[in-house]
């Protein structure tokens, strides 16, 4: 299988395809999503990063209209609705976290079944994708591997030629090779057709490699939303020589580590704030990798070793 990846420059100041404000959803008394704001621009690849149980799937299920938000508003594909409508869903391709297809159906039969719900379904494109992904049309779903099922799901999500593609941890459970293959296909499809793609993941390298912009969700709340370069500019580690000094309130403390009585802290602030910061008692102000930023964001607030 070979996926052609076509790199393109994404124009600036694109309109938002999705704007969600203050989405809330509880399971029992547990807030699964607690005031999530999202802005997904048209044509971009948006990586939705969070650890297991952070609220990614619940957010996506709200976006897909599978469940309703208890509060909040959502503007999707130019329409503001309390809940995603059938009309909007027809313009969205969706790959869920687990592929719960009918095991007795063949790939072709499943495509025919799914296609009957989309007026824009392109049967030829579906067959082309199956061929591209090397999935036999006549094979039963029960006989497919996890990777093949994920690709089949992607083919079914793409075949209706949707404006918006939502993928909920599509590579979960795949081996590293299959995962890389899969993400390459997604990126290629997104770039080729200028298709807005929103995918969730807890794998930092995946997000780093594919996403134009990212959102980090933790305990049902958005911790960051923006471009990766912004994140790297805004989040820095400060390592103190001796007793740490407090930074201004505008610096948001994400994490503190104490290793052999040496204190280092991760703060988030704007690039201007960082440039204006003058510290004497500081050994180093260093940039972090995305993985370090992510761990600082969602890990323990204070770690002493």
């Amino acid at each position: 299988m070979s996926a052609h990846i076509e790199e393109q420059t994404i124009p600036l100041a694109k309109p938002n395809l999705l704007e969600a404000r203050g989405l809330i959803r509880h399971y029992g008394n547990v807030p699964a999503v607690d005031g999530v704001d999202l802005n997904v621009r048209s044509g971009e690849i948006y990586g939705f990063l969070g650890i297991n149980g952070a609220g990614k799937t619940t957010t996506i299920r709200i976006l897909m209209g599978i469940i309703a938000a208890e509060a909040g508003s959502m503007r999707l594909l130019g329409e503001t609705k309390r809940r995603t409508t059938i009309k909007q869903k027809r313009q969205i391709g969706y790959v869920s976290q687990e592929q719960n297809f009918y095991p007795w159906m063949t790939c072709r039969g499943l495509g025919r079944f799914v296609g009957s719900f989309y007026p824009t379904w392109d049967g030829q494109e579906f067959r082309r994708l199956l061929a591209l992904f090397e999935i036999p049309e006549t094979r039963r779903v029960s006989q497919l591997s996890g990777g093949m099922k994920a690709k089949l799901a992607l083919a079914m999500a793409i075949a209706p030629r949707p404006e918006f593609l939502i993928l909920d941890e599509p590579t979960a459970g795949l081996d590293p090779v299959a995962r890389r293959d899969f993400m390459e296909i997604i990126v290629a499809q997104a770039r080729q057709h200028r298709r807005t793609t929103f995918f969730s993941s807890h794998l930092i390298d995946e997000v780093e490699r594919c996403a134009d912009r990212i959102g980090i969700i933790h305990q049902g709340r958005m911790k960051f939303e923006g471009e990766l370069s912004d994140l790297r500019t805004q989040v820095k580690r400060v390592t103190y020589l001796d007793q740490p000094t407090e930074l201004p309130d505008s610096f948001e403390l994400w994490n503190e580590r104490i290793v052999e009585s040496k204190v280092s802290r991760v703060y988030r602030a704007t690039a201007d704030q960082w440039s204006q910061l003058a510290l004497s008692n500081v050994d180093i102000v260093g940039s972090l990798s995305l993985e370090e930023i992510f761990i600082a964001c969602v890990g323990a607030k204070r770690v002493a070793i």
Partner: protein
Amino acid sequence: MILALIEKELRQHGAMIFLFFLLTCTGMFLLQSNELLSLSGGSVLHIVAWMLLVFLPLGCLVLGNALIAAEFRQKTQVFLDGLPLPRWKMVAVKYVFGLAATQLTSALLLGTMLFGAWQSEFIQWPFATLLAIKTACWSWFCWSTIFALSFLGRYRMAVGLVVVFGLLWAQNVGGVLVNRFGPFELVSERFAYERYDYPIKELWTTGVIAAALTLLGFSMALIRDATLSTMLSERMSSREKLVMITLLIAGLLTLGAVAERVEKVEPLDMPDSVDIVDELVNVSAAAAVAEPTEDERKAMRLHAENAAKTIREVAVYLRIRKFPPLFLLHRRDLENEEYQNGELNSRQGYLLRLNMLETQPSSLTLQSQVIEKLLDANQHNRLNSDTRGWILKGFAYWWPRHSPSEPNAVASESFANENEFVLGQTTIVAKNLVQWKLFRKQLQAEENEGLIALVGIETIWRQDQAACREFLSAVLGYAAPHDFRASVHDWWYSTSYLLRTTVRMNFEDLASKWTSALRNKVPGQTELQPR
């Protein structure tokens, strides 16, 4: 969209449903042709009622599991949720699909049996329509119940068992007439026999319950995005299984223990009573006075012996193994032929208060009263709730007045004369069988309930015993009994069985013979004229 869903359900469950239909048809044909089974049910239509009561709910259970529970358990509903498809449509398609399969199965079940029984049973379109309505309503109830239950996921079987056991307990231990309630009445033992009376109240009740259960099922499927149903559909943990099994065993044991305790009824103890107990009868006579006189003691003995003799004869005649106990209590304050019923349940027996010095032991009223109440107790007090109860009352009325040498013949002409006023005021139309049955509906006043028996006797007096049988068959609305025994013994000694084995002819042949016999008896006249 909907067509795609229907096609999917058909492809997924079509083979199973087809097999279900095939099994239903084959099973019904086999049962219909099986002499032994059809005889044990009396009418072959009893088998339909039994199948509707047992087989159809089981079928619905399988269907509900495949259509709904499995969809949630295998999480394939998550896949459907991701499609541009309103959830209500998905649920509605499943409901309608299941309902159609259930209705079709029950229609096949009834249709196959009616087709097979058309020759052997007296089946007319109104009767077939009544059966079809009852069957359709019951099927709707069954599917709606299973539909709602299926959304309870892993607890559906437990809840179902609790409901079934609860109903059985209420029926058998609690004394609640569950089989007379709404949906269950539709498939009760009356199913095979009731030909004219539409159980409007029961149909309404069943409809309301079915609608409520449907609503409940849809609520489970739609409210809070089916979160509850999704959670319930998770497989049971080992601990949960252990708790469920423990609860089930404990429940069964408790049920058994309670049932056993309730079954043990305290016997009525009457001090200084005259007791006559043997393998057929159990009669006690006592006096509600401090010191009974010698005359009272003699009267007690006479009454006990006479009652025992009557009961013994009835038991032999009706092939009843043992009657419930009879308690006769002497009260000085009562007048001649004045009776007061005691407060005993059917298991304890029957208590009758009377003045034994004033009332003769050979009193026809007394004997009728004793026979009727004991037959009623023997039938667990179904006399007033069963549409055929009047037969027992008629029998009780008839028995003391019949000639012992010829049980089915009238004792004397004077007896008929005694009852002339009853017959004289009624025009009994025998133009055709339908009118005979309609006449039965006219007999609503309690005092007329014995009239049918009288008319039967009158028929014998005017014609012969065979004519009486034919008359009874027409009145009963189903195959004619050889004698009263067939009517009393419900379905175990059924009329159609006796008809085939004793009369050796089909009902229709018998009916036509009866009609022609009437024509021949009085040429140009097909009515029994009151004397």
